[in-house]
């Protein structure tokens, strides 16, 4: 494996060590915007996480510093740990499913003729483009307890009466529905991006990998994957982050059915704590803890990518 890494990174190695102003100039616009719109509020978020900060403080009252109070409060709350564990489990399942499906769809797209490829792209795009609120309403209707199409079809097909079956009241079933909605809306991004990555791969390599016969998976892994490794890593990390942060779908689905206490994820929990109940201090603390945990998890991958490129 080391040889593989070594040679991939050799492709990326800078031959001319030109330094100077060029990279700085290239980075200026992005950095300025990020510092102003994200950096500054982020700093405030961190400060707030050490303060007793409620709605009154939003309206101008002085916010007393309370040290690590918010952190100890959050970390000492068993609900936080439940939410955290639940979010991770949900995230892992989602990422695995989304990445596998997305990659398979992308590979399939390289094998389709123009008509079918456009058909698949348009289908994926439509799913992706649907506003999250609308998506949850529609899926909510499909899985509706009283009048849902799913219950109707299941009753018709299996002959068992599914009328009145609630898909959301059981947490596992709730997350299955949520997972379907989220996967349905994230597979398009993964598929498009990996497909775009695949089009970068020289045709000869693709053809070599497409030769029929046993060991297709291995061929993919050994021949195509090295080209896609960078994009794969990028997309996987993004999916992990997004699925951990997921908010709209869970929040809206909880309004339709299910038990909030058993189904809240980190995003919903932070919203409830900060904007919902006005405890911005604790909300900030949860956000900071969440970033630290995510960093800890992804640090292995990050170090690997950065190390590779730095060779």
């Amino acid at each position, binding site marked *: 494996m080391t040889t593989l890494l070594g040679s991939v990174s050799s492709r990326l190695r800078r031959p001319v060590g030109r330094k100077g102003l060029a990279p700085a100039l290239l980075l200026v616009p992005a950095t300025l*915007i990020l510092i*102003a719109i994200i950096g500054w509020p982020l700093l405030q978020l961190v400060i707030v996480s050490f303060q007793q900060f409620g709605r009154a403080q939003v309206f101008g009252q002085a916010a007393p510093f309370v040290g690590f109070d918010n952190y100890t409060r959050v970390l000492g709350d068993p609900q936080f740990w439940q939410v955290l564990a639940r979010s991770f489990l949900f995230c892992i399942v989602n990422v695995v499913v989304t990445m596998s499906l997305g990659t398979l769809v992308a590979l399939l797209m390289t094998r389709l003729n123009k008509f*079918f490829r456009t*058909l698949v792209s348009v*289908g994926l795009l*439509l*799913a992706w483009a649907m506003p999250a609120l609308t998506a949850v309403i529609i899926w909510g209707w499909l899985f509706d307890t009283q009048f849902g199409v799913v219950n109707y079809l299941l009753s018709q097909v299996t002959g068992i009466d599914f009328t009145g079956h609630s898909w959301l009241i059981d947490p596992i079933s709730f997350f299955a529905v949520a997972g379907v909605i989220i996967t349905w809306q994230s597979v398009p991004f993964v598929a498009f991006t990996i497909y775009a990555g695949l089009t970068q791969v020289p045709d000869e390599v693709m053809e070599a990998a497409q030769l029929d016969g046993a060991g297709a998976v291995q061929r993919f892994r050994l021949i195509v994957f090295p080209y896609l490794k960078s994009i794969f890593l*990028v997309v996987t990390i993004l999916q992990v982050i997004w699925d951990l942060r997921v908010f709209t779908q869970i929040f809206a689905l909880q309004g339709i059915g299910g038990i909030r206490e058993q189904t809240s994820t980190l995003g919903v929990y932070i919203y409830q704590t900060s904007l919902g109940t006005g405890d911005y201090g604790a909300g900030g603390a949860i956000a900071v803890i969440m970033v630290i945990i995510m960093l800890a998890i992804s640090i292995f991958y990050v170090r690997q990518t950065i190390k590779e490129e730095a060779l």
Partner: protein
Amino acid sequence: MSTVTKNADLAVLDSAVAAMIVPPSPRRASGRPPRRPVSGHRVKRRAASVVFSVIAVIIFLCSVFPVYWMINTSLQPNNEIRGPIPNFFPKDFTLGNYSTVLFEPSRSPFLPALANSLAVTLLTVVIALVFAFLASLAVTRFRFKGRKAFILSILIIQMIPAEAMIVSTYRVLDSWSLLNTIGGLTLVYVATVLPFTIWTLRGFVNGVPIELEEAAMIDGLSRTGAFWKITFPLLAPGLVATGVFGFIQAWNEFVLALVVMSRPASQTLPVWLRTFQQANTTTDWAAIMAGSTLMAIPVVVFFLIVQGRMTSGLMSGAVKG
């Protein structure tokens, strides 16, 4: 294990080198199987392509069914939407929901919201792509101090839950008098999609072997020239993929738009869509579906435009045949 990888690895390099050395052949029709002398292969390939097409249709149907349900709902009167027996086709076909959404005078108007959304979204996509492209070049094609720190920051930024930052983001815009301005919201959206765009484009630039540029430079092109002629066209699919992402993000974003664009005249479409949800009257779900359908159209149009560009012009001159 190591020998296998090594061989495969060499094969990759071999074909990459071959791709560089062999002059670009005329681009073959995409997706069609390459001509091969052995006829057994052809039969097998044809069978495979039928199977793939069938799978493609299944994927299409799965992705599109909820979309179909949205459109189906938007074409029915509100009371037909939910009932003991679902309507798989509009039983009482009506365009009334669209006229409600578009023309009803007591509703906040659609067109100004559309104009706001288009302005903010297009500006966001263009600015974010340009800035992210420049930044991704810096971090992939140059080695400089602070590079790792930059990449790491980009990653961290994406981990921050947006829900926790709404109030402070609002404060920043307020202090610059950017509330209720297209510029203000654009700035926020650019900042939200930039990290993602840089992070992803970085992956795409990394995917283009630097040897390609070097080969072109040996042929006498300048570094910049080599980049524009060789690498940039190969990035087109990546730019399109991230551009579409940015478009959809900016187009559908709700909470920040709600808070930043607080005056009705500066409303964007997602905020406009929520005005159909009521507390003290029956929610007009059919109208919400009609509104959602209208909202999806520009995204599809945008995609078709950029996709056309992606497959036609940009790539034909590329190294890849």
